[in-house]
């Protein structure tokens, strides 16, 4: 147990170090920086979605809607001269507020009903953005500029990395807390959750808000990184992909969401030149991984955990015999 903890810490430190020196490793290539940044942005999004879907059991297939809201918030506020930190935070807050509005009716729905309601949200947001010309400049999209002190890509790269680490840490804390347990409790049994004093409707809403908040931040980072945002940036496909990331990685698992996201963000790098094969490769990857690892990629670590499990089982059995012999 203790050793396990230690290994984990070293691993984490290594990962953070790797993120820090990454630009050096790729020779400051802007392409590889972008690949990494976009991956980070999707990691934040998929971790947020995981709160809702993996831990809370509330299926959302419209999560990209929050990315749109976050990214347009910084674009619109930025254009009106609102300072960076404020607009960035507002990306989360506005998205969180919309999450609240969506969450309020959504708490009554379950399973596929919720899925289709959120699908509607994901489809509608880009349409609204497209048609609300006066605010969003419609089809033309909006330019987004970074503050002067973060204007170089390498600087902003580190902002994204820092945000990713920070948000991952927040989310880890949340899911490991009473809040996270309440989410899982709602997923596993609403009745029992109520009996434990968990206000199901409230917590479902909280889930939506937290999830939307962080996704909104991710949307903000996205807009800043690319410097331009249009209504076609996030479609339902994005929402589907986010869902696939967390499921293929392994639901209700932080490493799972991260692994799944990296897989689907980096895979295209190897398939983009295969004309017309892109969706075949992505789709087959989804199907095959689930076929081979129905519980997602993190379940691979079960292979290493074998020993541990066995000891628990043996413990129990020896305890039973003791009881049998002793009394």
């Amino acid at each position, binding site marked *: 147990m203790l050793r396990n903890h230690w290994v984990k810490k070293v691993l984490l430190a290594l990962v953070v170090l790797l993120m820090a020196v990454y630009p050096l490793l790729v020779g400051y290539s802007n392409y590889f920086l972008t690949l990494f940044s976009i991956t980070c942005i999707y990691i934040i999004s998929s971790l947020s979605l995981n709160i809702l879907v993996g831990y809370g059991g509330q299926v959302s297939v419209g999560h990209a809607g929050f990315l749109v809201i976050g990214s347009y918030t910084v674009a619109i506020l930025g254009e009106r001269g609102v300072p960076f930190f404020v607009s960035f935070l507002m990306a989360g807050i506005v998205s969180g507020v919309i999450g609240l509005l969506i969450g309020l009716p959504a708490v009554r729905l379950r*399973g*596929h*009903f919720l899925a289709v309601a959120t699908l509607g949200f994901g489809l*509608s947001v880009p349409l609204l953005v497209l048609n609300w010309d006066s605010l969003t400049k419609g089809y033309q999209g909006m330019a987004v500029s970074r503050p002067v002190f973060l204007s170089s890509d390498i600087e902003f790269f580190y902002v994204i990395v820092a945000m990713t680490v920070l948000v991952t840490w927040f989310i880890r804390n949340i899911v490991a807390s009473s809040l996270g347990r309440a989410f899982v409790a709602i997923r596993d049994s609403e*009745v029992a959750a109520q009996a434990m004093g968990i206000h199901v409707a409230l917590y479902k809403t909280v889930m939506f808000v937290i999830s939307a908040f962080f996704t909104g931040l991710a949307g903000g980072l996205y807009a800043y990184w690319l410097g331009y945002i249009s209504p076609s940036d996030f479609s339902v496909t994005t929402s589907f992909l986010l869902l696939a990331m967390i*499921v293929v990685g392994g639901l209700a698992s932080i490493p799972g969401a991260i692994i799944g996201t990296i897989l689907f963000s980096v895979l295209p790098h190897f398939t983009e030149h295969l004309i017309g094969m892109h*969706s*075949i490769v992505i789709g087959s990857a989804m199907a*095959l991984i689930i076929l081979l690892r*129905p519980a997602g990629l993190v379940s691979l670590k079960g292979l290493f955990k074998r020993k541990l499990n066995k000891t628990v089982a043996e413990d129990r059995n020896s305890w039973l015999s003791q009881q049998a012999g002793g009394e």
Partner: protein
Amino acid sequence: MLQLIVSGLIFGCIYGLAALGIVLIFKTTDIANFAQGEMAMITTFVSFMFLTKLELPYLISFILALVFAGIFGTVVHRIFMKPIQSAPPLNQIVLTLGLFLAFNGVAGLIWGHTPAPYPPAFAGDPYDLGGVFISMNEVFVIGVTVILMLGFFLLFRFTAIGLAMRASSQDSMASELMGIKVSSVFTWTWGVGTVLGGVAGMLTAPFTFLQPSMMADVLIMGFAAAVLGGFISLPGAVIGGLIIGVFGNLISFYVSPEMKLVYTFLLIIVVLYIRPTGLFGGNQYLKKV
């Protein structure tokens, strides 16, 4: 106005047909099959091969394509779905999403992305019924939808097979203990569901033209229809489709076409707010402690 409603009804039937296949598979296997539309599309392409390459008559091609669909569905179930039958539903759904992408890509590789005209079941000019135009083909679409809906409704309600299908979705382990071969039931359902999808595809293609992405929108509307109708009710699926078709057309005309989708989902959310399990969903999440 009347014309709007009639056109809405026709597209409603198409959404309803797509929804029927989705609901059928869901009702039995508890899986929302996102690959449904693409499987229908492939079936439609296959029927088109029969029509153009082999120059078979429409009816023969139609039937042969449905035979293909039945085999296709069972094979997909055997290869992809059966091995993960006991995985959580969401994982299975994501697998169907993967199939959706892969099938779409494969169809693009084989048949290309240029839209092709697909013949309607009945050619001919529309009839003018006092200012409302309706063609023979459209009448046919409505007829097929209603017949299929009724047929499957009766199957589920009154036959032992139907009962076994319902039981399998609720508790597959207990169903096994009743002597039901759950995975065979599931395989059959996938076969039949794919046949239903194929019918939807072949009736949709004259409107959307034949191309790999022909079912994208129809599938989304099919899901919307299924949910509106309660997701487990076959008549609900068709009625949901009709409501969406007509409502969408009215919004399109009186408000604006680009807001059709937004309003349609708004309608669904309002309905679900009042009835969280759709119009004919019944008590799906019933649990007594």
